[in-house]
């Protein structure tokens, strides 16, 4: 049997809709004029730390940060 309905190009490239959308948004942000560009890039900075829990104990956390330490 052939695969089901036509797949959008980003799906066949291995992305989910959210990754595609964020990628597009990033590209747009990099094409802005100066004050707007730094504004939008700083707005989108992320900083978090997440850890997996195994057997009731947290493992080493992974920290994702866009702000310089």
């Amino acid at each position, binding site marked *: 049997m052939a695969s089901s309905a036509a797949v*959008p190009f980003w799906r066949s490239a291995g992305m989910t809709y959210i990754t*595609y*959308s*964020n990628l*597009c*948004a990033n*590209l*747009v*942000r*990099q*094409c*802005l*004029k*100066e004050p*707007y*560009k730094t504004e*939008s890039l700083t*707005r989108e900075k992320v900083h978090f730390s997440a850890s997996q829990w195994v057997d009731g104990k947290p493992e080493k956390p992974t920290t994702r940060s866009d702000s310089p330490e």
Partner: protein
Amino acid sequence: LVPNLDPPNTPLTFFQPRPSAASAEPIPPKLTIKLVSPYSSQFSNKQVDMVTVPSTTGQTGILPGHLASISELKPSLVSIHEGNEVTNYFISTGFAFVHSNSIADVIAVETVPTEHVDPVSVRNGILEYTRKMNT
């Protein structure tokens, strides 16, 4: 001094109720649109004559009285026609919802008025990515 015992407001209490779709018999003269992104809204409840949205299935012009529809948008320009003026906004991906009472919502991750776009970085970006694509 009596403490305020009212329950706290939820986001729903701040929403304006939409005019009900079923009872709207005459087609309103103007379309009400809302252009929003996650961090801001360009405008909510603006009355315009027509909006052109770039859906993945092609450019769609939305006039008052348009059929209710949902379309996924591709990165391109949204043009808002009001009287004789046209304002263009470049959106990265998003969606356009048209409701049956001539209210259209356009939501996008980034909505950029065309004046805010820097043509030099656009050209450099295109060159860089076509080069990456061709290798």
